[in-house]
């Protein structure tokens, strides 16, 4: 099971909710409740996060894209939230730089 919604910036959030009922922290819902103008994610009766506003409202900017759900689920939950944000051309730019021996720091060894 999954939950997917698109946000104002053009990005999208994906939550793989299959294991959410067993999550004790419900961290995504808790952090979202702290955000103005109010929560996007609320706890459903089945113990999974669900959407309070409509998809259209979220796309218009109700979700502030604080990325709290992504980060909190990562350290307190099951790490099942993913965020995709378009950055058109960045991967191609990095690949081109690497071909010329100019490797970004994060692609080098530690």
């Amino acid at each position: 099971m999954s939950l997917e919604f698109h946000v104002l910036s053009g990005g999208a959030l994906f939550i793989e909710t299959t294991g959410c009922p067993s999550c004790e922290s419900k961290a995504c819902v808790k952090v979202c409740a702290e955000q103005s103008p109010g929560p996007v994610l609320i706890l459903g009766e089945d113990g999974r996060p669900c959407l309070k506003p409509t998809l259209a409202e979220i796309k218009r900017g109700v979700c502030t894209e604080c990325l709290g759900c992504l980060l909190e689920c990562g350290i307190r939950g099951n790490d099942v939230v993913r965020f995709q944000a378009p950055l058109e051309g960045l991967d191609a730019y990095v690949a081109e730089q690497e071909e010329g021996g100019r490797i970004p720091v994060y692609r080098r060894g530690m």
Partner: protein
Amino acid sequence: MARLYEYQGKELLRGMGIPVPRGRVARDPIEAAKIAQEIGLPVAVKAQVLTGKRGKSGGIRFAVTLEEVRTAARALFRESIHAIPVEAILVEERLEIRREIYLAVTADPSRRQPVVLISLTGGVDIEETAAQDPRRVSQAPINIREGLLDHAARNILRKTPGATSADIVGLAPVLCDLYRTYRQFDCKLVEVNPLALTPAGPVAADARVDIDDDAIWRHPELGLRMTEETGRAPTPLEVIAGTIDEGDHRGTAHFIQLDPDGSLARDLGKIPVAFDCVGTGASLTTMDELVPLGYYPVNFADTSGNPSASKMYRITKVILAQPQIQGYLFISCISSQQLDNTARGIVAALKELFPATGGQPNIPMLFAFRGAYDEEAVQVFRDHGIASSPWVELLGRDVDERDAARAFHKLHRRWRDATGSVP
């Protein structure tokens, strides 16, 4: 501001009914000669670079044979005009110019109106002319509710010193079309310098068109990307960064590369570092403190106005994609923006870029959060284990820009000593 190349500007003018020379853009000498053959000799061969005083810098050449076209094109493609490499040239018919006129429509911030500028003595060194002898450049504000109609254009020209009847009748339609171009394409400037008076009538021998940044989205037909005002063509990373604000009005992510290949830092004997600030004032002050300590910010970035965390995530990925950097600083001014959101965006980017270490970087990084939710911002870094990295320094509101620069210097030296990295 999105400045169009001359050939793009001329296309716009042509579409608005203003005569321009026959010609096309070429990307190599063979194509240049082919265009010259099509339109007929003699021709002008003009470097397409986004800089002024191109003619004085040797960026415009004339050719009467196809061999001369090829020679001129080859020479231009090997050159840089004001340090900008020539990647395209415009080959167009050489005009028989009897007289040169300067015409422009631009925004006058003091009047909050468009203003028409006219010099009947031409436009060479127009800025100096306007400063030394303002009477030679006449100005007329335009009421945008009325627009510029032919009779009003004639009245403007009639009041222009030295205008003949032929000038008034011949130039009024061009002036009206120029104003229509300015309005239709949301320009900040439309300049024809010079408007050549030829036996066939007035022809725009050159064209400068600057589109208002904020209106680019209204003109998909122009194929422009939103980038910062730099006076040069945007770098690929600047174009990518320009997309971040396109669909998201919440806060801004300004990004300009000051030293795209790191050569300036190298020549100055400085260490290239990446940079992001909340607020331009804090940004410039921190840069001033960093340079004497031996560092050179290879980019300017300002992420203010309360950007979303997702915007911070994106711009951080762009900033850290600069391959030459040996460090990164994020400094906020005493800001009212919600810094915990800012921190979340940065942390999300770091965790994605450095997955093996859970977001801990391999170069020195300093973060100074000062303002609203600054303690929460620092806590986000702690919660995700990034604060415990030996190469991360987190500062709060009790530091100024000098403290931050010095702390970064200390961190960088420690990193250098420990890793053996050569600056």
